[in-house]
């Protein structure tokens, strides 16, 4: 049995399906999470390594403070790998040195052409920082469990505060989105309220 955020994930379930039991994580987010931590589609919860479990738990506890995933270099067609005796630290150091050298080369080329490197350009334009591009990765803005519930509560409270139709319907325990009330509407009467969640 694996525990993540206090939720018990059964051993014999597929990890990709088991993660959807977390409030706020659906099939697509679960697939993204599995991809991020290199969990294949048919991996069962009992096959998860302790490293993967720890990484998942620490990511889900605070998604915003998680480190961004590095870009892994991928082997070109005629790539010859280094011998196995080389350690990971040496290879990482070599990779960092190679990346630094490439960046320096790029900056030199830009300077020759009369264009400044990218950081200087940002500082020059209007003294303001350029607006940050919205990331397409939903994991960067992941909200789950208590945070998500709080957000929903705040949204409902905001609607009530501004005196909108949506807020009034929540307060009256009635359907909000224009459904019929002459019959049915039982779920709304049961669940819709201002202090939902």
């Amino acid at each position, binding site marked *: 049995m694996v525990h993540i955020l206090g939720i018990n994930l059964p051993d014999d379930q597929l990890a990709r399906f088991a993660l959807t039991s977390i409030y706020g994580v659906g099939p697509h987010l679960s*697939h993204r999470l599995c991809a991020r931590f290199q969990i294949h589609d048919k991996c069962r919860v009992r096959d998860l390594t302790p490293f993967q479990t720890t990484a998942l738990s620490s990511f889900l506890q605070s998604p915003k403070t998680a480190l961004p*995933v590095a870009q892994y270099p991928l082997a070109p067609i005629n790539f010859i790998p280094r011998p196995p005796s080389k350690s990971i630290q040496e290879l990482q150091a070599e990779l960092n040195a190679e990346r630094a050298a490439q960046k320096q080369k790029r900056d030199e080329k830009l300077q020759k052409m009369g264009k400044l490197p990218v950081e200087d350009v940002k500082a020059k334009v209007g003294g303001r920082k350029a607006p940050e591009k919205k990331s397409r990765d939903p994991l960067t803005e992941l909200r789950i469990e208590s945070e998500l519930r709080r957000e929903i509560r705040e949204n409902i409270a905001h609607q009530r505060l501004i005196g909108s139709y949506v807020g009034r319907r929540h307060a009256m325990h009635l359907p909000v989105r224009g459904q019929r009330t002459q019959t049915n509407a039982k779920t709304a009467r049961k669940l819709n309220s201002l202090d939902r969640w």
Partner: protein
Amino acid sequence: MVLALSRASLCRSLPQGTACLPSVRTYANSPPGQQGQFKIQNVKGSRKSKVNKTFSRKNRIGAFRSMNPSQLTVPVLQPRPSLSMPSFKPELMTENMIGQVVAFNQTLNDPIKYFGTPKNMLLEFRLLSQRCSVIRNITILTTEELNSAASEPSHKTRYVLTGPSGCGKSFLLLQAVQYCLAKEWIVIYIPRAKTTVNSTTTHVYDLRTQTYLQPNYAQQTLRRILEVNSANLQTLTMRDGLSYERRSFSSGTTLAQLASAGSKDPAISSVVLETLLTELCRQSKIPVLLAVDDFQSIYNQKTSYRDPHFSAIRPYHLAIPRFILEFASGKRSFPKGAIIGALTAADPAFPVTNELMDELGVPGVHPRSPYSKRSKILQEYARGLRNLPVPTEFSPREAASVFETWMRDNALTAPANDELFLAKYTESAGNPKAFVWQGILGTLEGAAPVVNESTSWPQLREGRI
């Protein structure tokens, strides 16, 4: 009143001492001497509890249990005489043996047991009482090619078996594997290459090779290679030593010892597999065959795996498909040996791609033009592959042998005669899979009703069908 009487009568008929509760079931007493026959022993649910539990499926044994074989007296269940046919041997691969069915006997290093087979073939072998296949014209051709490949580097003999669905590509590949093994080659057979790209096995990024390793699959592959080729691998030794992850193998270690170590520990299995292949590429003593079924699955642009940024991982960035691609393209080569792949024509998840169809000269289902999408990298990996087309239909002689084999194995419900054979051969247009599965096994024609004049009941006169 009536109910009370009936309950009383029920109680009177029961042996004394039993409670007359409506929820308690009682059965007739078994005859003396057989009382302990079906007594359940040492089972959780057999203990009598004071409280009547609700019906639970948890500890149920079930009503049906297997009987002793000596108690089976019904004619249908009598053991059949096993099919007798010659065993598959390299000496039998001659022109006059075309149309003969030969058996794949179980040996100590049986490739069918250790490497496995594609699913359809597995089902067919389960139905037959002996694993066998028919020698065709294309089998003789393939064995001749393999004979000439035994003394040439593998980049000169790279074939892909093509043909429509059900024409016998996988069977031909298995025959090639059996032939090479009997000729004492080293054989690496991957019957379902689809499993390397459909995200069913562990993958982990490795900075040294800049690819995603598949340690569990590498471990399984090493174990299988070792089981099938242990005799040959014990005669070969490593030229250079290997040290990785606190494990070291000195030069002079046999490849069997290396493979054995890799098959026990998934942490080192990928490196061990890579080293094993490198060593096999250096030795020129024993020819090596790399046979891959589902060959087209590794030529699809995107696999089912996703990288941490959620983009699809390419097959040449996964360790196992990459090594197959390198050997198939001739970038890596065994000094002696061959590479044979077999396409799976009807797999919608991993169809045959444009790059393969262009290289092999196969028409394909949909028309394609110079503007159709192609990957330059996959074109590079497909360069030099040669097409070996498998005939789409059985010859009448081959079909007759197959029909007779199934007939002797009691597969036919209909009376076996020429009319049935020709009917099924025509209906399936000679296609091997359709002939066996829809023709022989799928026929619903039963035996003709036998007229029984002596019976006194008119409805039984025509006998049972």
